[in-house]
């Protein structure tokens, strides 16, 4: 069925496509879940809408309210679309070092942007948002890093879709940010299928992003549950870009840069399984498409140049 009553109803049920060129063998196959096929073009439509609906149900969010959220992009864009349709205001706290496209899209949807310092990355956005929440008690902060509706949206939609389309799944690989996708999908798959391997790919940024004043300013999202994960990889900009381009060249999938990081982890596992003569069906998340990253130069010039340009940027 491809007819929906409204854009919001078109959320989810995204395609899972095989990667015949990148899969190392007939027995070790890679599958990409195309989350860019959501209403605003990213996986964040799922948690954003779920968090709004949960807040509406609790009575925290009523018509005319202003939503506040620390976000460096996709969640903000998802919230901005839903806020526009449902009659809410939106204030996004966003680090300075995020791509220009995200700012323009948020502004097009009518969101207000409050910039937080580049140094410290999303940590600082969280700090600034928490300060704003205190100063504006009538604003509603959904707080994706600690909102259980975030992980639950993946437990109830993303996870079941993947298992329905790939009953033989052995590994799930996703990007680690709020940790909502990995915790939600991971818990669902563990509940349904013993022995599932859940693998995290975490972006490794330039030094600027880790420039905290002290270690206790560090941050682990409240949603994070390390028991859900089997392994966790840290992937730098060079490898993420290399895999993003490889996915485009080999399989025709034009993905965002964070997907390259996820694919890097997925291929590491796939190659190891192939060497060991094991059978594996590895599903991974394509969180968004490449459009929003064109201005970063990710898709042009040499990999070294492109990686250099991303240094200090929040690319995932």
């Amino acid at each position, binding site marked *: 069925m491809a007819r929906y009553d409204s854009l919001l109803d078109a959320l989810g049920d995204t395609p899972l496509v095989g990667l015949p060129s990148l899969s190392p063998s007939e027995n070790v196959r890679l599958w990409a879940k195309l989350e860019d096929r959501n209403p605003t073009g990213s996986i*964040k439509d799922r948690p954003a809408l779920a968090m709004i609906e949960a807040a509406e149900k609790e009575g925290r969010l009523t018509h005319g309210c202003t939503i506040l959220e*620390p*976000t*460096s*992009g*996709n*969640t903000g864009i998802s919230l901005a679309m839903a806020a526009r349709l449902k009659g809410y205001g939106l204030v996004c706290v966003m680090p300075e070092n*995020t791509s220009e496209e*995200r700012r323009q899209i948020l502004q097009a949807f009518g969101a207000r942007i409050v910039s937080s310092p580049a140094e*410290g*990355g*999303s*940590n600082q*956005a*969280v700090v600034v948002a928490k300060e704003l929440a205190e100063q504006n008690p009538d604003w509603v902060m959904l707080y*994706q*890093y600690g909102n259980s509706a975030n992980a639950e949206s993946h437990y109830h939609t993303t996870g079941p879709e993947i298992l329905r389309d790939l009953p033989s799944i052995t590994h799930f690989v996703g*990007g*680690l*940010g*709020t*940790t909502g996708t990995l915790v939600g999908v991971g818990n669902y798959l563990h509940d349904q299928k013993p022995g599932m391997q859940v693998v*995290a790919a*975490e*972006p*490794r*940024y330039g*030094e600027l*992003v*880790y*420039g*905290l*004043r*002290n*270690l*206790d*300013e*560090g*941050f*682990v*999202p409240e949603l994070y549950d*390390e028991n859900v*994960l*089997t*392994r*966790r*990889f*840290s*992937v*730098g900009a060079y490898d993420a870009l290399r895999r993003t381009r490889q996915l485009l060249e080999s399989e025709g999938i034009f993905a965002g840069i*964070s997907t390259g990081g996820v694919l890097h982890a997925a291929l590491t596992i796939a190659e190891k399984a192939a060497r060991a003569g094991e059978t594996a069906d590895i599903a991974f998340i394509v969180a968004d498409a490449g459009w929003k990253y064109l201005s970063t130069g990710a898709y042009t010039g040499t990999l070294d140049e492109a990686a250099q340009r991303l240094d200090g940027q*929040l*690319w*995932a």
Partner: protein
Amino acid sequence: MAINVSIPTILRTHTGGQKSVEANGSTVAEIINDLDSRHSGLKDRLVKEGNLHRFVNVYVNDEDVRFVGGLDATVSDGDSVTILPAVAGGMR
């Protein structure tokens, strides 16, 4: 056996500003002890009550050691060790 260890900005006060230093050892714990013998105070910043500090992540060849044995994770010649503070993800 020398292992290259990458040090985050916030801990470079212990290494005289050096971004990376060499260390010896066959586990993460041994590496940290060896580092501490030359860069005093480093261990206290990384280890709390016998475990890695909650806001510190250590990677051996890009893999988080918490999932491969924690402080007992093995390290071999030619491996690289990266220490990073935990931060919020990027474009969330």
